């Protein structure tokens, strides 16, 4: 067991995948001698060569489009998109090509492509550096979408994503890159929790709180604070955003009767809406109150002096918990 930062844990996972499979190649902007703008690929080009850790031209569609060709040739490309807001130029290649190639060819061509995306806010960045674009991709059939929330998962899930024969969008919460945690580097991937499973990270009985990526830590902190007031919150780390592991969420809601979902992305059409609807369909008779979403606002990601208002925090989450419990809250007395 070693103590690693989030970024080092991903680095260690990438290293392991490069060692284990000669078909794994990394491609992205500045990932070579610089080691990526967040140093996640630090030292990998030095150790594996420029032919396996490829500094690409500054062209996101080109990164993903050439990865499609590499996959066609039998490689397992791991693409780095430098920042969340830079993924849009590659959107067409991701949703029209990466996602559909397996379906289009009746399973004859696999796209084992991993697309790493540092996502989310909270680091005081300028425009295009703090977005949460995951819903665009969860809406696209053919893609698997995951978001990691701790160094151990980061280490394990990057290797699982690379080993997956399906394309995986791998979202990394950039404001947690420097958080440290225990990582068991000897973990046997075949025994590890599968890539598409959700984890109950805090057991509770009054309210189910669903989070992923950067907000898992905030959700756990909120559960701790709620416990101080005698409210028992069960926190679920989704891990997989597409597909969502509904049986785990369902079992929890059947127990608690209440559901709060939190994400940094804007509310409308977001993952929270999908989860609220699906859980309502599946658990209607068990719900004691309507599901509540605590999310970013439906605004472009704001300038950094205002981002603390946009991002869900512990207090906003607890306010949502109070709403499901019928306790006094910021919307008390408001109809509808």
């Amino acid at each position, binding site marked *: 067991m070693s103590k690693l930062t989030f970024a080092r844990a991903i680095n260690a996972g990438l290293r392991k995948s490069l060692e284990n499979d000669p078909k794994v190649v990394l491609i992205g902007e500045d990932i070579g001698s610089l080691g990526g703008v967040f140093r996640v690929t630090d030292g990998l080009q030095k150790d594996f060569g420029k032919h396996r850790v490829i500094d690409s031209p500054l062209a996101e569609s080109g990164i993903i489009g050439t990865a499609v*060709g590499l*996959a*066609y040739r039998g490689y397992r490309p791991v693409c780095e998109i430098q920042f969340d807001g830079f993924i849009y130029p590659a959107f067409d290649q991701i949703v029209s090509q990466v996602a559909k190639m397996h379906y289009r060819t009746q399973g004859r061509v696999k796209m084992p492509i991993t697309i790493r995306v540092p996502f989310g806010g909270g680091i005081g960045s300028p425009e295009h550096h703090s977005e949460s674009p995951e819903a665009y991709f969860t809406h696209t*059939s053919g893609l698997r979408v995951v978001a990691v929330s701790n160094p151990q998962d980061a280490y394990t899930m990057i290797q699982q994503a690379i080993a997956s024969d399906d394309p995986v969008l791998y979202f990394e919460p950039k404001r947690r890159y420097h958080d440290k945690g225990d990582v068991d580097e000897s973990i046997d991937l075949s025994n590890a929790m599968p890539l598409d499973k959700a984890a109950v990270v805090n057991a509770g009985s009054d309210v189910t709180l669903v989070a992923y990526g950067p907000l898992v830590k905030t959700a756990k902190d909120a559960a701790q604070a709620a416990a101080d007031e005698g409210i028992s919150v069960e926190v679920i780390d989704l891990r997989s955003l597409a*597909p969502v592991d509904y049986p785990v969420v369902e079992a929890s809601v059947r127990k608690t009767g209440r559901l709060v979902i939190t994400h940094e992305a804007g509310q409308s059409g977001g993952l929270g809406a999908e989860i609220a609807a699906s859980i309502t369909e599946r658990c209607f008779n068990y719900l004691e109150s309507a599901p509540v979403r605590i999310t970013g606002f439906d605004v472009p990601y704001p300038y950094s002096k205002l981002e603390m208002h946009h991002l869900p925090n512990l207090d906003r989450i607890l306010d949502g918990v109070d709403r499901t419990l019928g306790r006094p809250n910021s919307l008390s007395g408001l109809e509808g």
Partner: protein
Amino acid sequence: MLTDKAGKGVQNDAPRPGQSAQNPLRTGGNLLQLVSPEGERISHPEFDLWIKDIGDEQLGSLFEDMTVIRRIDTEATALQRQGELALWPPLLGQEAAQIGSSRSLRDDDFVFPSYRESGVAYIRGAHVSEIAQVWRGNALYAWDPQRINMATPQIIIGSQSLHATGYAMGVQLDGASTAVLAYFGDGATSEGDVSEAMVFAASFQAPVVFFCQNNHWAISEPVRVQSHVQLADRPTGFGIPSLRVDGNDVLAVMAATRWALDRARSGGGPTFIEAVTYRMGPHTTADDPTRYRDPNELEDWAAKDPILRLRRLLDVKGLLTEDLEGRVKAKADAVAAELRNSCVNMPDPQPLDVFNHVYSTPNSWIERQKDHYSRYLNSFNQPVEEGAL
């Protein structure tokens, strides 16, 4: 350059644009032509070498292939008009470009087509029923890409130029001598992906040939809307040598493609070929070119018909015998009949097939939807019991 498995070659050691951009073959926008529209053989000191093995028999076989793919095209257009195909993108007029280029490929070369390369697919070994399946709407795929070394049709304009470049980068990593050919049209050169593909291909010196069939029209938009310069001028700015060939001259297309493929295989890097041709039919069976095209233009190009030109060459050489004509017609008739039969007798896909192959591993969302839809379909077979709601 991405080269050997030992990792010695590195992309940043590639010649910089300018160093690698020598392009002695392209001068003043001249069109490479080895056969005149009147069927006269025009000699060229350099490119004659690339077709010196094309004797009488090979000329006959090129004539056969061009005639057969024209017949496939005519038959498919008729099948669409009869409601047997949902749509068809005609290749009428582009037979020399498709046959000249595809007949230049080795079996181990890999092709990334656009949607109009039905003639290329036929030459690569796709069955006509596999070609028809796509346009009938019975499958998104046509053929097994790994079997014929040709990707399935690509409808998003220019996307495949990046796939070809990535595949070529993989060829470099493998240390193989395979070449990769990407087909796209004049409209695609306006797409960002084609520019990005040229950036990547030049930077990594990838063994890819960009084969642009400039058929003059992107649906209703003429090529002058796409480009202020000749299309073959564009790649030189990326450090990629280019050739502008008469796309209705099968020998010129073949010589140029062979030259470019050989460059790719021998580490010379990417090449861009602009095959200047003309789409004589509509973009697809869904549009009407009389709304946007001057009929005189069509007449001018009909005089440069690629099959007519080869016939004239064969005639000049005394090769246009009854035997050849009869043989070619019989072959074209047989292929057309096969296309028609396989098309009208094609079984419909099964309802639950809609859920297959989205992922290579199970996905709980789709499994559930498939299960629910299957129950729904089965409900039609169940008697509804009194009071059972």
